[in-house]
């Protein structure tokens, strides 16, 4: 009765250990990782394809998994001197992945170390490439994308070969996340920006003033033209009227000038001779013809 539990415990222990050992023979390598099979610390197999694999049980062989996904890393912001002695503060962005897991494991082993290495490498290359270009290669109004791409391309090309050969790391891309000026230059930049804006504002306002004056002057000129044209037209019309009237008069009166003269003179008298006019009439005036006996028709007047 006493031996039975002991036997049972022994059997249970053996079964458990065996199960664990068998279990450790199976290795699942995920699609997101590489599997490296180590035998006493030495790499014996590199598994690059995901799937289920067999290996020797645990103490003999162990597995190290390395991320095979695209990894993102932002090195610290650093200040660089360009070829024309301008300081540029660059915050870069590195995307990388492990392409040679065996080499990676041998040289860097873990991610913090890898990032430190990448940081050193990338910052050095950025420093040397930026240092050999003027700042206008990166900051330019003309929009030199070729120049920008060229600079970035050189940085990537120079860092890339090194990273693969040394650490088994593929630097997929190095990008400029931010590019700014050192803190002590900001005040100057803002000062200049204010001055530029002031100039533009003044220019806008004076442009408005100029345009206003131009429009007003043009309007005034057009007004003058319109009125002058109207005056010309009016005078021409009036002249036409005068001419027509004159022609009518001449035509009509021409038929009997004598009568016209006579009538018109009489009409004129009616207008000329008013209440305070004194007139001396010869006795033989026609009015009085029946009084006297004259044959001449003579009129005289004095104002």
């Amino acid at each position, binding site marked *: 009765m006493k031996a039975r539990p002991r036997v049972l415990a022994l059997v249970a222990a053996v079964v458990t250990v065996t199960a664990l050992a068998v279990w450790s023979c199976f290795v699942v390598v995920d699609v997101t990782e590489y599997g490296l099979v180590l035998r006493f610390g030495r790499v014996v197999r590199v598994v690059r394809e995901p799937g289920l694999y067999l290996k020797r049980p645990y103490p003999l062989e162990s597995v190290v998994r390395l991320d095979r996904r695209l990894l993102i890393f932002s090195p610290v912001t650093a200040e660089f001197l360009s070829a024309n002695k301008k300081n540029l503060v660059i915050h870069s962005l590195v995307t990388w992945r492990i392409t040679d897991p065996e080499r990676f494991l041998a040289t860097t082993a873990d991610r913090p170390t890898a990032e430190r290495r990448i940081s050193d490498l990338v910052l050095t290359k950025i420093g040397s490439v930026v240092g050999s270009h003027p700042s206008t290669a990166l900051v330019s109004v003309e929009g030199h994308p070729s120049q920008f791409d060229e600079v970035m391309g050189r940085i990537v090309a120079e860092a890339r070969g090194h990273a693969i050969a040394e650490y088994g790391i593929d630097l997929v891309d190095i990008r400029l996340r931010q590019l700014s000026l050192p803190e002590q230059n900001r005040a100057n930049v803002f000062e200049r920006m204010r001055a530029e804006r002031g100039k533009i504002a003044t220019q806008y*306002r004076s442009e408005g003033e100029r345009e206003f004056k131009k429009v007003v002057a043009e309007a005034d000129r057009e007004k003058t033209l319109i009125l002058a044209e109207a005056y010309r037209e009016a005078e021409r019309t009036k002249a036409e009227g005068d001419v027509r009237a004159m022609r009518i008069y001449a035509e009509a009166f021409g038929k009997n000038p004598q009568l016209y003269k006579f009538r018109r003179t009489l009409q004129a008298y009616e207008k000329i001779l008013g209440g305070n006019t004194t007139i001396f009439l010869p006795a033989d005036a026609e009015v009085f013809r029946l009084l006297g006996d004259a044959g001449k028709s003579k009129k005289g007047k004095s104002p």
Partner: protein
Amino acid sequence: MTLPTEAHELEAGRLTSPGPSPLFAAHRRAWILGFAAFAVAIYLLTGIFTVAADEQAVIRRFGRVAARLGPGIHYRLPWPVDRVDVIKTTAVMKTGVGFELPEGEARVAGVEILTGDTNIVSVAMTLQYVIGNPAAFLFDIETPPALVSLVAESVLTETVLGMPVDEVLTTGRLTIQEQVKTRTQAILDRYDSGIQVTSASMMGITFDASVAQAFQDVASAGADRENKINQGRSYANDLLPKARGEARSIVLAAQSYKDQHIAEATGNTTRFLELMTEFNKAPDVTRTRLYLEAMEKILPKLRKYVIDSEHGQKPINLRLGPTTP
């Protein structure tokens, strides 16, 4: 196999502490088998999962991508054989460029960028994207949302670096959005990220407090300019119609002057011609009549002196006499 048995022994021991129940003892094997079957069934049932209408599922069998499933109820082999990841593919995801999105959108500062003419501006953008390829999205990239945001930020920086600030503020806005969208997409494609950028939109451009006023002033100067020009135009628009009206009335006045004079002439001459007809019938009589009629009208109003011209030189005396003009 050992575990359930032990559990049953324990359970059985507790339940039947006075002594083995005859019922249990009789069916002991059946109990154990039933329990084992139940456990296996539960285990197998854990493989059932559902995919909602806006989701897709990716199944990994032993780490290898095995299937991509759409909406519905599905079955996979339970752990440790299959693993399933369900993600929303039709839902549009949003990420902020230069700021964290969940933050209060009112105080979005954005990322400080240098423009091509060395001005410092802060630009905030949001990027929308959908997952085009779930497997790539899940397994090829470490943190896809962060990657989208960071790549977009770098494209934004790169784009603005080649632009003068005035362009950034005006016509460049659209260019920037377009560039950020297409170039971010190009880069993400190069990374095989499975991400589809649907839109990039600029939330705002801000300036450091020390220069914001100056930029504001430029905007109001622009408005001033427009105002001034409009003022000039409205002056012209007011002046010219008036001038045209005036011109029209001048011309019309001339026209009526003309018409009036012609009409007068016609009237006068008509009268004259009528008169002439009568006159011609009896010229002498009519002439005398007209003369006398006129004199009748005129002479009563006048002071008159009648002088017999053949008998004396009186007029001089008379003029010096009682009448002075």
